[in-house]
Structures are given as C-alpha cells and as structure tokens.
C-alpha cells in the first residue's frame, strides 16, 4: 500500500512539472509577447522595453522557467499582467467557490448515482433508464443545461437566484441557495455516468461465481449485494468518481462563467481572453495540484476495497 | 517402435530463467528432449512443470538462457528475425483453446493462407488447391474456407488449426494441450486424425498434455516434467507400466481409470473403508 502511494507521488512529480512547463513551452509561439499583450498596440518602444525588463522577458526561456519554478516552490506564482496582483493571492480567493461547487457536485452525483446504479443492476425499468440517460448525459452540453435551468428556475419560476455567489462565512443559507443550480448542472451528467458504471460493474459482480456459492450457502441477498458485490464493483466506480471530479474541475470553466461565480474556472476564461499568461499558468498549477490530491485519495480507496492492491 | 536413429528435433540442456520483478525464477532446468522422425514424444506434467515453457522455447517464443536446439540438423537456438521466421516451413504448432485458435474476424481461408503468405509460398503453389487439400486431410469440406470460425464447433476449429499447421508441409508439429479442451468423443476424433496424419505424412509431434491417459494413447516416448526438471523419460510402455520415479508413479496413480473395478483397486490405501465388491450385481 505504501509502495502504491509512493509510486503515485513519484508519478505526480513529472505531471506537475509537465503541467507547469506548458505555458513556457508555448510562449515562443505567441505573436508579440507579454509586454505587448499587457500594454496594448499603442505602447512606445521605451515603455515596452521597460516592461520587458520588469517581467524578465529578456532572459532566455529556460531561465525564465527556472525563475518561475523556484518562485513557485516558495509559493510565488508571479504577478497577473492585468490586475498586477500576485497570482496566488488572486487564486486563493477563488478557491472556495470552485471547491464548494466541485465537491458538492461530486458528492451529489456519487450518492445518487451509486444508489441508482445498485438498484438498476438487475435490468428492469430503472436499468433501461440508466442506460439511455447515459447516452443523453454525454450529449447534453453542460453549459446549455445550465442556461436551460436558469430559464426555468430563475427566469420563469423565479425560485432561485440566476447568478452570483455568496461565501459560506457570510451567509450559509444564501451560500447553499446560490450553489443549487450550478451543482445540479454539474452533477446531472456526472450522476448518470456514475449510475451507469455502478450498474455495469454491479451486474458483472453479481454474475460472479462466488455469488452463486454464497446463495447456495444461504447468505442473505442484502449481504450479497452490499457486503460482497458492491465491494467487488467498487474499483471501477471509484475510478469514474475520480474522473467525474476532475471533469467537474474542467466543467467549472463554463459553469462559473454562466452563473457568474468568481472561481478558478471563470478566472481562467477571463485570463485566456485577456492573454494573462502568468494568471492562467497559475490556474494550471492549481488544477494540477487538485487533480493530484484527488488521484491520491482514489488510490487509497482502491487499496481499501481491493486486498490485492493492499498486499503488494 | 519407430526408428530413433534420425532425430528431427533435439533440445539439449535447456534452461529457461525468468525475471519477475527482482526475483529470478527458473522455469526449466537442464531439460533434454529428442524427437525421432515420424514419432510422437509426449511432455507430461502438472501446472508449473514447465512443459509449455519448453514448447515456447522450441518455437522461439521465449528466450533460452542456456542450452541448444537443433531442428533438422540446423542450430536454431538463438535464431532471430527473418531466419527465425523462416522456420515456419519446418515447424508449426497447434494450441489448446479452440475458441481462440482462429481469428474470429477472418474467414477460415484467410487464416489458412496466412502461413503461406508469411513464408512467401503464394507464388510457388496453387493456393486454392493447397487449402482444399489440407482441409480434406483434416476431414473438413473444402468449402469451409469461405466461412467464419464461429460457424464451426470446437472440434472442427481444432481440425482447422491442424490444417493451418500442415499447410506449409512442416516436419514437426508442436501440439500444446491440443485436445485438452475437447469433449471425449471429439477428442477421440482429433487423436485419431493426428495418428492418421503422422502415418500419411511422416510427421513428428511434440505432444504436450497434462492428461496421462491421452499421452499414454498417442505417444511413442514420454518425458515427465516436474517443476522445470525431467523426472523420467523413455518409451511410453516402460514409463507407464514400470515407472521408476515416485512422482511419475503418483501422477499415474492420480489419473483415474475409466473402469470402476480397476479404479477401486488402485485407490489410495489410506481410504478407511475398502470399496465393497459389487461385482455380483452384474449379470
């Protein structure tokens, strides 16, 4: 088990390095440079030179990366080109809304998805519902679904706020209300993915030879489903939950923009539109670190459910 | 007995070691096998005995750590690349599982032609005639070539695999558990077919099996393997009637014989109550 965690951590290092390098590798392809992007087309040559000096753009690329990396290891991800604020300061403030949204959506999707999938394992109507909704869920763009929900619940029924975010410290009730629509939007497709996976791996587990042995030995059906089959089905379900979490991370890009939530995703969109490379590089680092943590948790969970992993 | 002065395949002092993680594992330890012309040599043993490893080593599918293999007088121990592939004209193989012995996506004909194509023999011969000939030789209709493997039973697919092994006219065929997955009546047909083909074409077989009774039936000579080493080898008659090695004895005794009278006399003496004699019931 310990070896597994160490292996996963060892794999995380190149992942973090590659992810951190991406914007630097691409910089030579930039038409103009950060200074030009920052000051706009009307800047004078002197202004540009000064800005370049300040941003360290005159250094060779590897040295720029090295400076950035040593800074990053000390918790300094540079300064936003647009707002001139430190990237970490900017992004730390955006962490709460994004994490509320992602964790909320993953929890909702996992609980309902697994419950549905277990019940749907034995074919029947629910089984068909799960099967067909999984195709539909793949097809419905999440941003479109979010807009439709806004139209129905905010514009037409006026039940929920259409946009905006209230921090939990300010008002927990409003916080929850402001997250309902975004969480539903993110969790619906995820839910059907988890339900489908649960149904499929439960069906496989229930086909296992040991299920027949247990039945023949008079073991109760509930024990067979929850103690035995679900445990055997757990690993692929966990994998999908991990993927759903990482997917929700990507989903924030569109969802936070629709619901005007000041999170990592909406920040990334603004940074892209304004070509604020240090800021978007910062979001890459945050996303990558969150992904690494999630994968680690999923791996630990594998070990809990699968004794074969635990022993090695 | 067959003329043993003319060996088609000789494997001398074969040792195969694997590395599994940090551990070394000896799959075969100093094993010798010699297959005479037009004879069948059996390799028998249980799981982990190394019998399949030896087959793979001879076929060039696993690297040999030490030892030497000679096929028709040619040293093939460390042949690689093109020269190894060229051996497909002299040595072919038939494997266990009739469900995967043929690519389910290809017609039988395409599977049969594959060895000819690989050996660049397509131009030299009348391909359709050769396909029809081998199919007939294994007791199938020539029109089987245009059909898909799923349209055939397990026994028929095993026949087609044999046909594929014969199509390049090899001298040696390695049968790796080739009849083990078949039902008794079908197994009998395939065993008879192998015997017939040997008589008609002078084939030599290396016959790998875990089933002592099958080996006893078809092999001229037997080699008993246990955990990668040879326990005993010699003419089948001698090994099966006067085994010298205790493991061979145990193996022979463990395989039940399809005759209740004989079988109950062979049962292990530890059995507390001897089987009651009920021969009086038979009229």
């Amino acid at each position, binding site marked *: 088990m310990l070896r597994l965690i160490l292996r996963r951590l060892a794999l995380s290092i190149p992942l973090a390095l590659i992810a951190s390098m991406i914007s630097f590798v691409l910089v030579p392809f930039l038409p103009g440079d950060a200074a030009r992007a920052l000051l706009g087309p009307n800047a004078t040559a002197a202004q540009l030179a000064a800005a370049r000096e300040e941003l360290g753009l005159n250094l060779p690329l590897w040295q720029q990366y090295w400076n950035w990396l040593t800074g990053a290891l000390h918790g300094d991800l540079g300064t936003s080109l647009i707002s001139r604020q430190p990237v970490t300061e900017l992004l730390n403030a955006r962490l709460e809304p994004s994490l509320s949204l992602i964790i909320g959506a993953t929890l909702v999707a996992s609980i309902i998805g697994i419950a549905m999938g277990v019940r749907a394992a034995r074919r029947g109507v629910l089984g068909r519902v799960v099967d067909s909704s999984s195709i539909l869920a793949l097809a419905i763009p999440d941003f479109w679904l979010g807009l439709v929900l806004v139209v129905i619940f905010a514009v037409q029924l006026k039940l929920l706020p259409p946009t905006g975010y209230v921090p939990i410290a300010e008002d927990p009730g409003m916080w929850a209300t402001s997250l309902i629509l975004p969480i539903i939007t993110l969790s619906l497709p995820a839910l059907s993915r988890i339900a489908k996976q649960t149904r499929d791996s439960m069906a496989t587990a229930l086909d296992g030879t040991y299920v027949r042995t247990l039945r023949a030995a008079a073991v109760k059906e509930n024990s067979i489903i929850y103690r035995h089959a679900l445990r055997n089905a757990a690993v692929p379900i966990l994998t999908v939950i991990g993927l759903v979490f990482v997917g929700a991370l990507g989903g924030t890009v*569109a969802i936070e923009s*629709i619901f005007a939530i000041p999170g990592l995703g909406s920040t990334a969109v603004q940074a892209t539109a304004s070509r604020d490379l240090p800021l*978007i590089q910062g979001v890459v680092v945050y*996303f990558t670190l969150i992904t690494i943590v999630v994968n680690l948790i999923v791996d630990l969970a594998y070990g809990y459910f699968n*004794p074969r992993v635990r022993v090695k | 007995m067959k003329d043993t002065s003319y060996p088609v395949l000789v494997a001398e002092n074969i040792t195969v070691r694997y590395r599994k993680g940090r551990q070394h594992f000896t799959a075969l330890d100093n094993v010798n096998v010699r297959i005479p012309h037009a004879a069948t040599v059996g390799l028998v043993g*249980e799981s982990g005995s190394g019998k399949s490893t030896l087959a793979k080593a001879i076929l060039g599918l696993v690297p040999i750590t030490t030892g030497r293999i000679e096929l028709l007088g040619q040293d093939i121990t460390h042949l690689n690349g093109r020269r190894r592939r060229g051996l497909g004209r002299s040595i072919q193989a038939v494997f266990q599982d009739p469900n995967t*012995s043929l690519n389910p996506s290809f017609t039988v004909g395409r599977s049969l032609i594959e060895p000819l194509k690989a050996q660049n023999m397509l131009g030299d011969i009348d391909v359709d005639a050769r396909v029809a000939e081998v199919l007939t030789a294994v007791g199938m209709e020539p029109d089987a070539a245009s059909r898909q493997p799923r349209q055939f039973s397990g026994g028929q697919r095993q026949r087609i695999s044999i046909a594929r092994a014969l199509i390049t006219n090899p001298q040696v065929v390695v049968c790796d558990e080739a009849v083990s997955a078949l039902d008794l009546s079908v197994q009998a047909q395939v065993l008879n077919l192998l015997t017939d083909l040997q008589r008609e074409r002078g084939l030599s077989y290396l016959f790998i099996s875990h089933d002592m*009774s099958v080996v006893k039936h078809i092999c001229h000579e037997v080699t008993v393997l246990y955990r990668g080493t040879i326990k005993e080898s010699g003419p089948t008659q001698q090994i099966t009637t006067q085994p010298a090695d205790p493991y061979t004895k145990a193996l022979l005794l463990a395989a039940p*014989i399809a005759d209740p009278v004989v079988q109950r006399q062979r049962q292990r003496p530890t059995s507390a109550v001897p089987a009651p004699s009920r021969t009086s019931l038979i009229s």
Partner: protein
Amino acid sequence: MTVTSSQRSSAALPNAVPRRQGWLGQAWKRQPLGVIASIFILLIFVLGVLAPVIAPFKAGQQDLLVTLNGPSSAHWLGTDALGRDILSRLLYAAVPSLTYALIALAVFLLIGVPLGIVAGYRGGRIDSVISRVAEIAMSIPAVIILLVVLAVFSSSPIAAMITLGVLGSPGLIRVVRGVTLVVREEAYVTAATVAGVKPVNIMATHLVRRALGPILVQASVFVGSALVIQAALAFLGLLSDGDRPTWGGMIGEASQVISLTSWPLVPAGLIIILTVMAFGLVGDAIRDATSDEASPAGRRWRRRRAKTVTPAANQFDLDTKNHLLQVRNLRVSVDDGVTLVDDATFSVAQGEIVAVVGESGCGKSVTALGTLGLLPPGLHVDGGSVIFDGVDLLSRGAEAYAAVRGGGIGYVAQDALGSLDPTHTVEGHLREVILRHEKLSPAKLKQRTHELLQQVQIADPARVLKLYPHEISGGMAQRINIALALAGRPRLIIADEPTTALDVTVQSEILHLLRELQQSTKLSVLIITHNWGVVADMADRAVVMYAGEVVEMGDVYTVFQAPRFPYTAALLAADPSVSPLGKRLETIPGRVPAPGSRPTGCRFAGRCPFATEACLDGPLPLRVVPPGSVTRCIRAEELASEGVLDR
C-alpha cells in the same frame, strides 16, 4: 461404430446457415437505432455542405425588423437578436463544427491506435514508457490546457482541436493496449508468430482488426465530446472563426438575451444534443455488432423460438420413495426460448454417491443448478419436481429452498477460486456462512471455523483463515469451498465438476476427501462430471445425460460393463484411459443436436449406428431393462443380446 474422420464432417454441416441478405438490410435488422443515427449524421453533413445552395438566407444576413422571433413560415426556426435566420445559421455552422471534431478525432486515432497496439504487443520497456506517459497525460486537466493553447494561438480552433486530440489519446491508448494484451495471448496470434508472420504484420492485421470494435466505440464517444467541448469554447467566445456561425457560438448569443426570450437556445442546443447522441448510438451499435461477431454460434439459441416436446411418461418403478433427493422430469428452459433440459430424472439415497456424466451441452450443469434453485437469470424451471427429504422444493417455491440451502443441501462449484469473494478472507467467508446456520458466541465461532478447516484436512487452519482468495492455490480453494458447503451440516452435497480445473494429483486428493466425508458422516453426494475416471472412482450409481435428457442410469459397475444405451457405450469406448496403446479410438460421428433442433424421437438416433425408423417415432420413455439399468433405448434388449453394447 468406427467412423473415419472424413465421414464425420458432413454430419456437422447443417449448422452452416446461408446469411446473405444485403449488408444494409442486415444492419437494419440488428441495429435499427445505429442505422438511423448514421443516416442522421450523414444528413447533417450533407445539408451542411449544401448550405450555400439550400439555406433560405445567408448566414450573416440581418433583418432588424424581425429580431428574436419564434418559428414562422418565413423563418422556420425563428430569428436571433440581430434578426438573422436561425435555420440558415445552423446549416452554415454544421460543416465547420463537424470538421473541427473530425480533426480532433484524426489526431486522437493517429496517436492512440499505434501507441496502444505497440505498448500492448511489445510489452516490456516500450510498454512501461508509453503507459507511464499516458497515465501522466491522463491526469492533466484537459480543459485548462486548452485554454492555455487558445491564449497562445490567438483562439485558433484548429490548434484547440489538435490539442484536444492529443489530450484525449491517452484514454484510447489505454483501451487499445488493454484489448491488445488480451488478444496477443489468443492462440491465433501465437500461431501466426510460429508461422513466421512479421510482428508488424501481426499488429496491422490481427491486432488492429480485433481492436477495431473498441477503437470505433472510443472514437464515437470522443467525437461527441469533441463537439461538446468545441461548442463550449465557442460559447465562451474563446474560438475565433471569422464571421462564420458555430453551434456553440449561437448558444452564446442566445444566452445574452435569455431574460427576453429563451427560444434561440432550443434549436442550437438540440442540434448539438442530437448529433452527439447519434455518434453515441453509432458507437453502441458498433460495440454490439463486434461483440456479436466474436461470440460462437452456439450462443444464438437464446433467441430462437421454443419447440415444445412433451416427454413420454417414464415407465419404471425403482424403489426411490425413501431416497433423500428425488428429481423427476425436471425441465429447464430459456425464458421465452428453447428448452435446455427436458427430462432429468434421478435420485440420490442417503449416504450414496451418484454421478451425472455427459459431454458439454448435455445439460448436466443446468440440471444441477435447477435442482438447487440457483439457475442464472434468463433460465427457469418449467416442469417436474425436486423432492428433498420428502418436501417438493419446486412446488413450495423460494421459501422451501431457503430452508434447505446450506443446511440441507451444500454446493461446490467447478471454479474453485472464482467461488470465493476476492475481497473477503477465508475466515470472513466461513464466519458469515456459519452464522447463517447457528448463532454462536465469538469463541465458539472461532472453534467452529477451525473445526471445519480440519474437516477438509487443512493442516494449519490458523494461518489459512487469514488469507485472501488470491493468496491460496486452486486445490486449497476447493477445500475451503467444501468447508463452506459443510458449514450448515448438510445431508447432501451437489458438486458440479469439482475437480475439472485442478491438477490431476490435486483432483485425486479432493476426490479422496469427498469420499472420506461421505463415509465418515453418511453424507450423500451428487457429483457432476464429464470424466469417466471420476465416475469410476467415486460413484455408487451413474446417470448418463445426452442432449438435455437422462438416457441411462444404473449401478456404476453395470453402466461401465454392460451399458444399455448406445451413446453410453460409444462414450466409454472413446476414453483413451482404457484403450490399448496404438489402437484407434472409437469415435461418434456428427455432433450433439443443439437445443431447439432436437429430434422428437431418440436424440442420439442421428449418430447411432443401430438406429432404425422406430427410434425416431415419438418421445421415448425411460424404462427398466435387465440387468436392472434404466434406459431410453427401445432396442436395448435386442442390442444386449447381440452383445454389441457390452465391453
């Protein structure tokens, strides 16, 4: 009865079904949804290409007098905020939307397929490098990398789609590698290697062809998600494609006016959903079609219509009234389908070992599971009776079965390791099963687990109890399965091929164990086997099954020495263990008739050298013939007197 091999194949040919009814017709019959979906995608593409010709308006043509209109005769799908025709814009947007998705797909396939196949086939270092890199790449959050690329390459859709293809390919690599790992172990790949086929040709023919199904499924899912992601980027205004409309961009425009009208959201959203769904359905159809291809023809009977044959009343009266288990005329069918077992009739007395013997497909395992009430979903018992200890389990239903399971009848299956739950220890299994039968204090429970392991002759119970199934050998696992079966102190054990998957020396130990248990505890054993040696070794009585019915039964010595059904005699003669070295084996021509195409009369008649016209005439009952055997053969006495059946 000796038949040469060439005679044999002609009898096996009827299975060859001519199946040429046009490629499309066949596809339509099997996968109607897949065909509709393919046509839909094609239609969207063609209409998109023809947009300049057939669209009622130009894409950018504004009419500020009719902004935000709903559907009308002039504008079938209404107009947007600038009064542009929504239908025309959708049509103009089709080609770029699909083309960009296809660019991503091309990159996805070009990277994923070769690397996946090479990694799976070559293994070793190449595999570990490719797999590691893929694993790392899969952990990178794709959307954010797309944003970086878009920031650098000034919102270029092509750059975005190439990146998407690259970022998606590790998923395909993993799937293709997984398939390749399985396929490369299949015998035909090894056979091709032995035949001298070059590795590159093996990869390009066998492996690509076998991985094609999964590849196409992945491709269809990927194209769909590429369309959605591309729409999302356009929606966010991060793709610049000149003035050309895009589906995602149209949703973005619609979202600006959401407080005024929601209509423009509908057409653009639906076209994306329908197109992506169509790709998904095509993928599903491909998956079903390719998994169909690999399945053997024998599986197809599941869907065939039932042909009901009423079995004749069996005419024998052996004294089985006091037998512990009596199975009479048991009949098992596929739900809405063919009958697999029509007439299983046999009994097991207290303390007796009875063997059911037959070749694969004769229905012996289905009979065992039907007797136990443990048929897999899709099969059901539709006739007969199973009387255990005086109680008819079939007519009393589930509750009667629950009462005897474990406590009255124990069960041991063929797959020893698969019969244990891999996530629980040996002790976990035993505890749960013991507690179902008796409430014990923790100390007593521990004692009982040790006792059971000792009963199955496991030397060090304390160590074995802590082990997981993957840590024990097949023989050990089978001992534990027997211990589990014994946990409820049953009077009968049904063992379905308990030693078939084991080595012969281990088989001998397990058979020995079963025999000892039977002798020490007066246990009854019903053993299912295809191995005459096991029957000879274990059984007091033998029951021979053929094509879904019992054809002969009797005392084991009688069945072996004086079989009274020609199939029994032929099957015994085919056993090499009693055939002298060098002698030809007896064979049986033809093959077992498949369920659903079994003849009305004697089912063996088509392969029997002694068959007459009368043999095919109506269902044949089981009857008693001298020297006390029960047989279905109407010529049994005649053949016996000729001496052609005896050995």
